[in-house]
């Protein structure tokens, strides 16, 4: 459904943009309907940039992103509107997604006035009801309220409900639960699982390996803009092939097992560091950028 092929993003940085920073380098992956793929990386790994390019908030320097075979970069104004009816994003900070001086109904009402103008008031109300139900929100709890009266979890659900009012097919979820409390974040995460069951494809961007493992079918590990490992989630977590992935997984704090002080922490070698090792197949549906793999 969504295909990212050979996408690279180079930002101009430094004074007068004289220096170039490669944020994303030759990243390729595809997402099928009903598939959750998690994009995992530390800060500065380029994971958010990938999400922004899919949403056409940032333009790729090279490579192409296609949605149902159409090149996203070449969409005209009207086609772009159609595109946004299918592809939506939800971001980390729920409070900055809303204008604090307006009631939250406004972001929903804007969908009515710009995308669904043919709907009568009562049809709209039913549709709204349904999409709020889908994210387990009680209309009376959220409608007519200002953003500060709602919790972060409620606001994030509302953003997802907003996307559901459209014909949502693909969701870019960028760290959507990082700011939520532990007791409520899991419910928002489960909601992504419910969307998946409806056939929505999801790009789940996170730095948290346990969240990625919980929800995703496939995993992509990004490091300094490059994909170092990708594949079926149970393979990447169960049998990590790249030293960087191994290092990440040994650093994750567990609730049942303490860090082993005697364990050899795998460190990426200079050969891994130079970054031009090609992705090679380690097993079925499991690839890693390592040298000397067979």
């Amino acid at each position, binding site marked *: 459904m969504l295909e990212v092929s050979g996408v690279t993003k180079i930002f101009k940085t430094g004074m007068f943009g004289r220096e170039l920073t490669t944020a994303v380098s030759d990243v390729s992956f595809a997402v099928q309907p009903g598939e959750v793929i998690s994009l995992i990386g530390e800060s500065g790994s380029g994971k958010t940039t990938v999400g922004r390019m899919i949403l056409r908030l940032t333009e790729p320097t090279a490579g192409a992103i296609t949605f149902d075979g159409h090149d996203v970069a070449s969409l005209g104004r009207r086609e772009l509107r159609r595109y946004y009816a299918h592809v939506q994003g939800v971001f980390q900070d729920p409070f900055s997604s809303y204008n604090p001086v307006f009631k939250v109904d406004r972001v929903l009402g804007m969908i009515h006035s710009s995308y669904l103008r043919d709907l009568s008031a009562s049809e709209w109300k039913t549709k709204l009801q349904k999409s709020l139900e889908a994210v387990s929100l009680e209309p009376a709890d959220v409608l007519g309220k200002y953003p500060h009266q709602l919790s972060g979890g409620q606001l994030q659900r509302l953003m997802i409900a907003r996307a559901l009012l459209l014909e949502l097919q693909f969701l870019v979820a960028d760290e959507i639960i990082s700011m939520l409390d532990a007791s409520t974040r899991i419910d928002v995460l489960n909601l992504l699982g419910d969307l998946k069951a409806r056939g929505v494809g999801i790009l789940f961007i996170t730095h948290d390996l346990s969240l990625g493992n919980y929800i995703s079918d496939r995993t992509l590990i990004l490091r300094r803009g490059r994909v170092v490992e990708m594949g079926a989630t149970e393979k990447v977590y169960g049998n990590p092939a790249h030293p960087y992935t191994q290092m*990440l997984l040994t650093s994750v704090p567990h609730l049942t097992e303490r860090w082993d002080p005697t364990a050899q922490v795998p460190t990426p070698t200079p050969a891994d560091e130079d970054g031009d090792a090609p992705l090679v197949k380690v097993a079925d549906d499991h690839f890693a950028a390592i040298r000397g793999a067979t």
Partner: protein
Amino acid sequence: MSLAVDDLRVYYRTLRGDVRALDGVTFTVADGEIMGLAGESGCGKTTLGKSLIRLDGRMRVIGGTVHLDGTELPLSDDGAMNAFRFREVSIVPQYAMSAMNPIRKIGRMISELLDSRDVSYDETLPELSRRLALVGLDDAVLDRYPIELSGGMKQRVVMVLSTLMNPSLLIADELTSALDVSTQKAVAEMLVEFRDRKFVKSTIVITHDLSILYQMADTILVMYAGKLVEKASAAQITQDPKHPYTQLLLGSLPEVGVRFAERRLSGIPGRPPSLLNPPTGCRFRARCPLAFEKCAEEPPFVEIGPNRHAACWKVGAA
């Protein structure tokens, strides 16, 4: 007994009334103990950490006492607290990475800070560079501006600086939350090493992340809506929690290995009560599946086993 907090109450003054952010907490932290302070946002954990070192303008100590090594801390007297700050009580702030003055070289900033406490920079320098070396930094960082260091390096500089006077109590607020997993591990291990080397006597680590506390803390104190919920060893809290809130909170955490398709975890329905006019009785009552009539009375925070405390009628009886 390094730190003893007794029935401490700290309220925030607002136009609509007092917000009871910290409503009667009593606990102790032993010498050499690293205590994790865990809870969700708004539970009062940061308020507790801040009130032990510096109240901000809207905070008022309504009651209770705090003793550090037998001396009472004059929490409400900002001037008198100055004698304790940095030397006796020190803090690694929540955004340690942006805690440094951006227009001062790090060495100069440290020297100005030491000056303000009448400590000689030149005399401290050998110890400073020894400790920087310990965390893998060389003296060259003193000649750099904060912007020239990476996030992890800045965090280490701030940690060395906060503990330079060997304080009795170190408060680390969300120390590891903004860090990548690999750096997070290094910082957590560093904090344990600082304790082992006796740079600090007792440490309170404030975080919402129970799994990182299990890795580094000796004990964990869980808070909810301005009250204490449960305190026990890190292993007891994470493997065998007694209070229903701790149990539900742990049940909502995905671990590596738990997958949506196989085991769907669930959160805790509802949200914490407003602390403007908090309900009487147990504050977790409205969200608690075990709540019964007696919960309308406030459960005391009592010893339920050796070195274990909890505030719940269901647990206290057992």
